[in-house]
């Protein structure tokens, strides 16, 4: 029988071998969909530990990247047992790296951690044009729009995107994140929130829904 507490702690400790061994043993027992969903929730709780350790300075960016990969690997292992079922979705985030910027590491870390926290994330990728953000936001009506960027030019692309979203009467809250983001640039962009770290960004998003 799968010990969910140990699974959570193993994922929080980034003990890949232990996590995957536990999940293999678990899936070999042909678990029910409900049991598989409990395992998913345990893994997601492990990501909360990762976020806490990041905030304490024990983990840093490389660990978050590894944690995202480990979570994806874990969920993939559970997929055959999940069938058509799904975890409870607490909100939808439309996410992308803004126009002119091709970086995606930070965006992908935020995506992994947001999904682990129960958000459905629609990832538009990198170098996302203003119109693409607007059209997709009108189509899926997300609660939150997340814009990422590493280059300082991303700040202006974020501003352009926020202005276009407002002109199109998109009511989603906007959070911006990445290397050049500051309190001042957030005001300049017209965003509702900003962050320079993914773990904090997820907490902010939880407060926005």
């Amino acid at each position, binding site marked *: 029988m799968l010990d969910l507490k140990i699974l959570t702690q193993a994922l929080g400790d*980034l003990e*890949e071998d232990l996590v995957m061994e536990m999940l293999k043993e678990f899936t070999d027992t042909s678990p029910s969909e409900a049991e598989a969903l409990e395992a998913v929730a345990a893994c997601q709780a492990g990501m909360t530990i990762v976020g806490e350790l990041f905030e304490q*300075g*024990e*983990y*840093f*960016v*490389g*660990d978050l*990247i*590894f944690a995202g*990969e480990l979570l994806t690997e874990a969920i993939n292992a559970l997929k055959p047992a999940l069938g058509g079922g799904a975890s409870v979705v607490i909100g939808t985030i439309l996410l992308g790296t803004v*126009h*002119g*910027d*091709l*970086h995606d*590491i930070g965006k*992908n870390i935020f995506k992994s951690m947001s999904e682990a926290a129960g958000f459905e994330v629609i990832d538009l990728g990198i170098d996302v044009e203003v119109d693409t953000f607007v059209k997709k936001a009108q189509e899926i009506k997300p609660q939150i729009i997340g814009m990422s960027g590493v*280059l*300082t*030019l991303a*700040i*202006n692309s974020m501003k352009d995107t926020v202005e276009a979203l407002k002109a199109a009467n998109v009511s989603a809250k906007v959070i911006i994140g990445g*290397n*050049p983001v*500051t309190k*001042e*640039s957030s005001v*300049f962009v017209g965003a509702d929130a900003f962050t*320079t770290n993914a773990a904090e960004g997820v907490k902010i998003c939880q407060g926005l829904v």
Partner: protein
Amino acid sequence: MSDQNIYEDRIKLFKDTIELKKTERVPNLSNFFTWKILDSPYKLSEAMNDYDKMERVVCDFHERYHFDAYMDLGTRNPIRVTDALGGGDHEVNDKTESINYYDHVLMKSDEYQELLDNEVKFLWTKVFARKFPDTTPEKLINAVQELMAYGQFNDKMTNKFVQEYHCPSVFNMNAVLMHPFEYLHNNYRGIKEVSIDLRKRRTELKDVIEKKFETQMLPALDAALDLDTSAYVCDTYFPMLAHAILSPKQFEDIYWPQLKQIIDKVVEKDKTIYIFCESTMLRFKDFFQDIPKGHVILHLEQDDIFEIHKELPNICLAGGMTTDLLGNGTPRQCIDYSKKLIDELGNGFIFSQNKMVSFRNDCARENLLAVNEFIRNY
């Protein structure tokens, strides 16, 4: 004052600042990169592909703003060389006025041993072949010619700035040192893969770091410390980027042992090292607290420079002026902040920009003119 005196005074100004001595004014170091082109009549692609145009851009920039020294003389992005090999490592976009470098994965996770066994062979047969898959002997010859042209342009600009503008070079290109982990992070594995390797292949990763350090870095360091660098702002240059993914514990394990040896040798030989830090450094402050003053310059990007100054009074700091303010503030706000930087950081501060200024909205011309006039006269 004679031209020679201007030049010598500038070198002395930098060296005294590095030694945390009181100086008549603060040295003003340009950390402007492709913004120089956007401040000129040329497009990015025009200047970056034409050395005559780039020379005009860089000279006009100096004649307009009059910095004491320059981190870049139009030589940061030798794209003609990589384009000759087939391109694919960057994108120059005139519409968005940006240059983006791609995060490559040129080495597979199971190839650490191969890298350890024979790095030169590994570079040519694996890394190079993956980065430039369409290279032909003709392209290779063209690339060598472009590399020589780039070298000549580099020399020409360095000499021109010394001879005509009396600006010392910041560092000797032969004294650039890079931590072995930077090679893995920047050139071979990429950010994501090396992050995974830190957890899954730590022993192999450390083996590569230690071997590269012993066989390549230490000899390079010894050679660099033997160079006559009296005409340069600093004796050695050490760019840091890969630390951005490391926790203090990982830094202590993966990065610091080699960096400490380098700094110890620099101190032992009474030389200086300019550490250009992308991202943040505050979480590593403890490692730098016992370094004797007068040897290390930290150029900071994202840190609160005032906080670092309090934590590391033994270190000369560079940077400070933010692109947020240069790009979006008023001349008055920029001058007020410049004054605060100089007043609070005191001796041992090289005035510069926090980021490698690259994009149009990183800076407004009137702000830079106002700041530099203030710096010259304060």
